[in-house]
């Protein structure tokens, strides 16, 4: 089934859906421009705008549900953005509203959590301003009805991510990580930008509706090129190979940021992009779509491997995020059969990963911002709520039966199997590794003996931080089943992204499903033996070559450094040298040459009257000679 037609809409809540973006944007502007005067209530205002946006989102959702499924794609024109190029408008459809609810919902929870987490930071107001800015940009990203609008949001979230990763900019590592995230994202944006150029050149429009309905029939090559370029953009934003390297460093940001941006929402923008463009540029079985699945699988394995070796709790979770997004990409590459699973997994992942990140934040909050899991241990007793919610998230991610992750991930694996058994089994393998590294994380943190630093006094976090955890863990438990069972989500999403002819049926005991469960269990057991039952050394053992390989992010940074940074620095020095000595040297050289000529030539003016007379004499002779020459021509 093809995606439904887009209908222009005005009136109702959908007609003012721009409020979704405007509210947090105004919040950000007010907090940034208001300065210190707004310090007192800044965080509350930040939360209020996010929640208000969520309320609007719910109302929009409800109005949308009121329409016939085939009429649920509503375009809301706003204004003429770049005359001759594009108008700005919003597209409210099942896909975008799913994101809206995730972003504003999880976003609101994280806002609330941050009140507690950032309570002692002198710049809390600014933090909330940035969070609001992020929410606005992310909503623009998913709501824009055209690629340029999407691009604006796309880079906008990049900016917010930059600001938030570098929020503690006085730490050089944070500043560097922020810059790195932005630059690597820009590499992806380079692809996205060129994709948009190509789209405009081929279709003479950049709006989704325009592209879908345009009569233009560009060549297959063009379409593939657009697809691959979009994929490059998606890789940047979603930390997929080969543009994954920024995500682990991005953990320098405050933990709510990691939860909101680098787990639940922004990093999934690549999945959104692929899904949104799916019908147009990633048709089933096309080169571009295949590339998407390969990238997805490669990343899900790479992320999982990295996750196994990290001792930094946030980095381990970041590796996990990479890996989970790899699943989503894989699903998104499969086509209509995978879209619903991709987005559903995205949503459930948003819940359980945010849950775990916030949980990790809660742990750090109680442990003097210690992130090394080797210095945790046995925390389940001192932080019961954190532990409980974290455990829910953990079970959800490893796919413990009947929890959210179980349904969505299994859906992905099933559809991948159907699509290509190789990819499917690789995905199963990834699930097994997930079982290992997530268990390792949980055991090292909450079980075993205390390995705390002397001055650590772990305690449970305040209610403002634990309540969001509780709400998120509830979502982590039930959301998956709600969405998947009965193909509820697939039929909802269908009008927006298309759906397969035959809706899949859910087999709780399929072969791959059982194998997955077995592998996960094995992984968890291995983790128990190594990290639960055994003593965990406080300093990391050297480990094998493989461990080092994983610890060093599969040498991704080393590769970047060898391939881009070193040659880049060398090129920069060369260019500066060339500019100073070569081009400017030439300019100055000409000037110096003329000056030198002058200095030498003026010596001819000897001051002797006889030599002057000689010059006249010779001049006369030359003149006579010249006249004869010219005269006899």
């Amino acid at each position, binding site marked *: 089934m093809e995606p439904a037609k887009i209908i222009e809409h005005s009136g109702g809540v959908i007609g003012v859906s721009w409020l979704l973006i405007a509210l947090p944007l105004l919040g950000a502007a007010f907090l940034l421009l208001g300065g210190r005067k707004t310090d007192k209530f800044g965080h509350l205002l930040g939360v209020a705008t996010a929640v208000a946006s969520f309320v609007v989102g719910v109302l929009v959702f409800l109005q949308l549900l009121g329409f016939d499924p085939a009429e649920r794609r509503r375009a809301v024109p706003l204004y003429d953005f770049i005359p001759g190029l594009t108008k700005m408008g919003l597209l409210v459809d099942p896909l975008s509203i799913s994101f809206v609810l995730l972003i504003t919902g999880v976003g609101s929870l994280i806002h609330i959590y941050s009140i507690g987490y950032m309570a002692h930071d002198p710049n809390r107001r600014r933090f909330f301003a940035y969070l609001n800015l992020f929410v606005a940009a992310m909503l623009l990203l998913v709501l824009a009805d055209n690629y340029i609008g999407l691009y604006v949001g796309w880079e906008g979230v990049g900016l917010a991510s930059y600001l938030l990763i570098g929020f503690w900019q006085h730490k050089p590592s944070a500043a560097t990580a922020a810059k790195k995230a932005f630059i690597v994202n820009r590499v992806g944006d380079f692809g996205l930008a060129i994709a948009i150029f190509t789209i405009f050149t081929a279709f003479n429009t950049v709006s989704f509706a325009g592209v879908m309905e345009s009569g233009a029939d560009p060549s297959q090559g063009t379409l593939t090129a657009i697809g691959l370029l979009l994929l490059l953009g998606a890789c940047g934003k979603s930390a997929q190979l080969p543009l994954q390297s920024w995500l682990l460093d991005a953990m320098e940001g405050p933990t709510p940021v990691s939860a909101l941006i680098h787990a639940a929402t922004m990093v999934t923008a690549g999945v959104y992009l692929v899904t949104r463009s799916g019908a147009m540029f990633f048709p089933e079985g096309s080169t571009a779509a295949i590339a998407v699945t390969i990238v997805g699988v490669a990343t899900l394995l790479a992320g999982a491997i990295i996750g196994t070796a990290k001792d930094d709790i946030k980095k381990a979770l970041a590796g996990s995020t990479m890996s989970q997004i790899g699943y989503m990409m894989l699903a998104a590459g499969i086509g209509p059969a995978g879209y619903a699973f991709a987005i559903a997994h995205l949503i459930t992942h948003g819940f359980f990963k945010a849950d775990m990140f916030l949980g990790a934040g809660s742990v750090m909050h109680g442990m003097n911002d210690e992130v090394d899991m080797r210095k945790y241990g046995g925390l389940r007793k001192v932080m019961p709520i954190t532990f409980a919610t974290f455990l829910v998230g953990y079970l959800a991610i490893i796919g413990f039966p009947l929890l959210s992750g179980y349904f969505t991930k299994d859906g992905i694996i099933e559809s991948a199997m159907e699509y290509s058994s190789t990819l499917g089994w690789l995905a199963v393998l990834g699930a097994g590794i997930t079982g290992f590294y997530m268990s390792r994380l949980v055991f090292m943190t909450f079980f075993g003996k205390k390995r705390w630093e002397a001055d650590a006094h772990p305690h449970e976090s305040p209610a403002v931080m634990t309540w969001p955890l509780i709400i998120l863990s509830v979502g982590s438990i039930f959301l998956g089943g709600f969405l998947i069972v009965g193909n509820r989500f697939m039929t909802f999403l269908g009008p927006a992204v298309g759906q397969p002819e035959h809706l899949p049926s859910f087999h709780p005991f399929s072969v791959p499903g059982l194998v997955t469960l077995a592998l996960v269990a094995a992984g968890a057991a291995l983790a128990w033996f190594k990290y639960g039952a055994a003593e965990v050394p406080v300093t990391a053992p050297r480990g094998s070559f493989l461990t080092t390989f994983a610890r060093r992010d599969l040498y991704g940074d080393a590769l970047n450094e060898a391939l881009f940074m070193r040659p880049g620095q060398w090129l920069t020095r060369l260019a500066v040298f060339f500019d100073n000595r070569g081009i400017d040297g030439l300019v100055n050289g000409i*000037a110096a040459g*003329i*000056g030198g*000529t*002058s*200095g030498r*030539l*003026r010596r001819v*003016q000897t*001051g002797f*009257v006889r*030599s*002057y*007379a000689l*010059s*006249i004499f*010779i*001049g*006369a002779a*030359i*003149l*006579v000679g*010249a*006249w*004869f020459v*010219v*005269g006899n*021509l």
Partner: protein
Amino acid sequence: MNGTIPAPTIEYALLAPMLVVFGAAIIGVLVEAFAPRYLRSAIHKPLTLLTLAGAFVITIWQARTGIPTTPSAMGAVAVDGPALFIWGTILVLAFVSVLLINDEGHFVASAAAVPGSAEEERALTEGATHTEVYPLVLFAVGGMLLFPAANDLLAMFVALEVMSLPLYLLCGLARRRRLLSQEAAVKYFLLGAFSSAFFLYGTALLYGYAGSVDLAKINTALGSVGGQDTLLYIGVAMLGVGLLFKIGAAPFQAWKPDVYQGSPTPITALMASGTLVAAFGALLRVFWVALGGLEWSWTPIMWGVAILTMVVGAILAITQTDIKRMLAYSSIAHGGFLLIGVVALGNNQQQNASALSALLFYLVAYGFTTVGAFAVVTTVRDAGGEAWHLSRWAGLGKRRPLVAVVFSLFLLAFAGIPLTSGFFGKYAVFQAAVAAGATPLVVVGVVSSAIAAFFYVRVIVLMFFSDPAADGPSVVIPGGTWAVGAVAVLATVVLGVFPQPVLDLAHTAAQSLFVR
């Protein structure tokens, strides 16, 4: 053959400006001879100024009553449109230069006294002055008037000498740095005499070729005489040497820096403006009236000379440290730019008129600016006279902003920056040359302009962007110099913003072309 010689007819009215100047010069000599010493200065100053002003008024009157189309004085002098224009220009420039000369302190107390001797000391304490300067200047100006108007080569030779001989003397009369001044005089004299010998020999050969020294007849002969090309070529070349020497075109430019540097600055101003104008007038007349038929052969040579002159002038000026010497090289470069205009002369009537008017405009513009520049040079003084070394000018913009701004204006005009007279001058000449198909020459011209701009700009840098020295030079602006500066500024700005009236004038003058 009864041996009667018919009395020549002389159109005294037409020659009046010249005659007035010469008459006044003779009166000046008589004043020197008979008037008591203390009165001389008081007589000379008004006399000279009134003479020049009067001659100018007569010139204007003549121009308004109608420009004659035939030569006067039995064909010896052609008072035609260009000549009248040039006369007017020279007279105004001379007037301005005399204002500069009037101010005390430029001339030696007693030229005969050995520098540093007791004799000189006495002359100084007595307050003696060389009032001979005034008749000498008038003679020189008279020569300048005759030079471009001379319609035969003999008259031209005589005019050349009448113009040059007083200048040789004037060059040696500087009050300060007398050794340099005397050296300038010797050099100028020897080389000038040397070059006029070439001029004369060229005249002789052309006389031999054409049977006449009348310019028009020489031109006629070009078409009719055959087989005498050797005489013609050598003659023309040698004539050219004499003329190019006077305008300071390369390779005959060597005297210019030395003489400009050594001479008393007011005299340099007179030479740099009046002599240049007169010499260009004569050059144009010779090449246009007498050698117009030979245009195809002198144009390429003129190209070469023009290029060489521009390049040498511009490049050598860069490393100069003496302000007057730098201006001398600048004058050489400008001579080169003017030669571009000469090249633009052709056989097409319309084109000739525009090239000629361009040259005339350029001469006016350049003349005023250069007088103004030298006037400023006289005002910046050290204990030992003018502050000649460029480094002494550092920070002048801070100490005396007005003087520095005025000087900068002149320098920018030299550089040809828009909204100054120099720009329109250059533009006019370049435009004429492009119209005549001499675009490559114009390209060389603009490249030279760019090089030349460097040393003008360098002086501005010194004046404004460098910090003043603790013992910087003092600035003394006597009344006459002040007036000169004002006139030059006015001319530079007005010609740069509203050039049309003068262009019209030059155009009218050029429309009639030189009388053939």
